[in-house]
């Protein structure tokens, strides 16, 4: 039995690619990224806009994809964790996360990476306070944050040296 729900066809620009998807208007961006487009790196931790696991970049700014409808993302550039991952290997920030043991279960990690990436893009000299402040919207239950902060600060320093 098929659902009666009306679907509309929308264009989404994700990680530099155009996707034509059929969605119900109430489907969240997180669900559509995960289940229609198959980008499961974006995680869902609360659907209440609190945990930040679903963070993606919308035109470079971190947003909570659980609070947005997919239709609202039309006309914007969406970047997910898959989009900041190089074809081979890891990005400098991802490498830094690995070097500093900034992840345990890894569930919060994609959201952390995107929030941190946006911070460093915006403020390449962010200090520890600024990093902690920027990450307040991303909950991590495993790491106690210290190694995440260290990883972001080290990536910042590396960016400076380049």
């Amino acid at each position, binding site marked *: 039995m098929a659902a009666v729900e009306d679907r509309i066809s929308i264009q989404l620009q994700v990680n530099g690619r155009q996707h034509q998807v059929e969605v119900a208007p109430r489907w969240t961006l997180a669900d559509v990224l995960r289940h229609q487009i198959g980008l499961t790196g974006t995680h869902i931790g609360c659907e209440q806009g609190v*945990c930040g696991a679903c963070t993606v970049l919308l035109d470079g700014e971190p947003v909570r994809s659980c609070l947005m409808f997919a239709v609202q993302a039309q006309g914007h550039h969406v970047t997910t964790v898959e989009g900041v*991952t190089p074809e081979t290997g890891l990005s400098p920030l991802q490498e830094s996360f690995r070097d500093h043991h900034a992840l345990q279960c*890894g569930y919060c990690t994609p959201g952390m990476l995107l929030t941190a990436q946006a911070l460093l893009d915006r403020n390449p000299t962010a200090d520890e306070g600024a990093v902690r402040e920027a990450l307040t919207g991303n909950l991590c*239950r495993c790491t106690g944050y210290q190694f995440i902060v260290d990883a972001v600060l080290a990536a910042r320093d590396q960016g400076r040296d380049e």
Partner: protein
Amino acid sequence: MAQAMRPQMMGARVSRVEDPRLLSGQARFLDDIQVPGMLEVAFVRSPHAAARIRGIHTEKAVQYPGVHAVLTHQECSVLLWERDTYKVGQPVLANGEVCYVGQPVVAIVAENRYVAEDAAELVVVEYEPVTPVLDMRESILEQPRRVHPEAENVFFHKKYATPGFDEAFAKAPHHLTASFRTNRQTAVSMEPRGTAAMVDAASGRVTVYASTQSPHRMREDISHLMEIPEHLVRVIVPEVGGGFGMKANCYPEDIVVVAAALKYKKPVKWVSDRMESLETDVHARDDIHDVEVAFDGDGKIIAIRDHLMADGGAYPAYPFSGAVGETSLASRVLTGPYDIPHLATEIHCTYSNKTPLGAYRGVWGPIASFIQEGVVDRVARHLGLDSAEVRRRNMIRPGQFPYRNAAGMVYDEGSYLQSMEEALTLIGYEGFRARQAKLREEGRYLGIGISVFVEPTAMASSEAGSVGYESCTIRIEPSGKVTAALGLGPSGQGHETTMAQIIADQLGVRFEDIVILHGDTDSAPFGGGTGGSRSGPIGGGAALVAGRQMRERLVKYAASLLEAGEEDIELGNGQAWVAGVPDRSIAIRTIAETAYTNVRKIPEGLPIGLELTARYLPKRPVTFSNGTHIAEVEVDIHTGVVEVTRYAVVNDCGTLINPTIVEGQIHGGVAQGIGSAILEALHYDEDGQLVTTSLLDYLLPESTDVPRIDVRHLETPSEGEGGIKGMGEGSLIAAPAAIVNAISDALTPFDGMVDTLPVTPPMVLQMVSGGRTR
């Protein structure tokens, strides 16, 4: 075999092999499992704490487009029942009554979650509410009623006293009493619970994807409860986004999902949303301790009497109740690192109309430490002594190991006093008092809190460990690369890395050439899983034993193929060679080729191939890690807000496998400890409604709530394999006590002492206004 004695990977700060997939978004968590035709489940849950069900009307939901099936107790009547232990069990879908808010009543199976939730709203359940049982002390007295008519509210009762307790207690020159309360908290893994199941039409086997800590236990539970023979059930644990004890149970939803997959021959999945998880993940820490302490004028504690009470919720969580785990273990380690000769305990675990109590990291530990360290600080304050000094006077001395505590638990060697002294130095305890006094004059209230902890790990029967051993299969492939499998269920601990470190040293193969499998009952040997800080010491021990056995086999091969004595063979970097004659060498790959394909060359007495399974059961029923946490806080007496400003940890978990991973565990546990101490509380209103159902109400520590944590290691090896002790829980065991002791210390001018976890700003303000003014 000098090489074998010189481990290179064990103890090294190796980057984790798990990380690249997690960092790039390629890891596969439960909700990432999607197969064609997969249906999704939504549950209709009880809105009442206690009610009789007068009728369930599902017609509209059944007809809703996209709905595949609707299940009630009639269609799925499994009972989560540990028959031998408890008189009651939870029906996976409510049967005639509901006993807590969030209890599953009806399951909707639909083409997707959106549709399932729509249909769930169309189900009408007629309830007749009854008075809920919500107060633990009343429940013990069977007031206002029995939760389950067929069973007494008290489902676990136990009394214990050391011989001569009463006399020793009465004769002591000083006494004090205190009542300690821990409020309900829960693990809140960032990845919620979830289960998916599908039937393999050819074999008739059911494959269950479960976000759980213990794959074999889950298979056992499903097999046992649903009466499917074990060989027809395969449990696969995908990437798990945090467990913390909470994912050690079999839950009603797990069974319903499997039942639906079997019944409708379709792949079925359910993933919890956050509200469901706060309502129905096992809760923890709902305990009261009424404590009396007897001590002498030097602060030496002579006797502790404790009445332990725990609210176990509506049903015993399956297959173990957290209330029993929290109290019975707390009662056995209540004297912590102190040499306290006398102990008397009485335990009452009761039913209530709240969510079942299960495990959350540390289980009994954060509660027992909160009490034991709170007692020490109270004694110090009572006598006007320095609290570090009182700890020194009571501490078990190095010469006393193995030490039998007043409850009969035997502690293996630890570094109790040393850990405290080093932590005091690390935080600068001496200088602190002057700083504190100076700032107090400026109206700023700093405090310091000490928490010396013991952490029983690798217990023969822990919450996740259905068995006391772990198993490890090692297979050196014909290519010389290694596949090893264990029955563990990691959820972020990095076992693929640490187990490979252990095996690399034993086999002399490169770390990169080892793959660790876990979490699939088809490939992993039977084991207890992850929980109770057993994976490092018991899982690691199994890896070590299996590695050693395989090493012996490699040495035999090398000796025979190189025509040398076994005692002269060394292994390393994928090679075996004759000691001192590196030219006389053979690649492990060549040995493997021989073992599989050139069978005539196999040395006599050795089997074909390079594959074996070893099981490891530690000789001691438990090994104790230990350490000291010291927290410094600043309390704003106008807002009641507490900031944890500095934090020092000296940790001793025996031989370290990977110090970086250990530090990560400690940081995370301290953060959770901050949550436990000042933020996290599950709150029920007077009707039994859980009012903290979002992460805006149930507050987790954020990046700005957690200070830098200064960690140092001590290494007092266990007597078990590799000298490894467990360490997953110690940081959360110690941290809440350190923080609340620091708050009490800060509030010394107001006479206050924290007796409740968590201590929230309004409670702090009350302590400030309730105490005498300076």
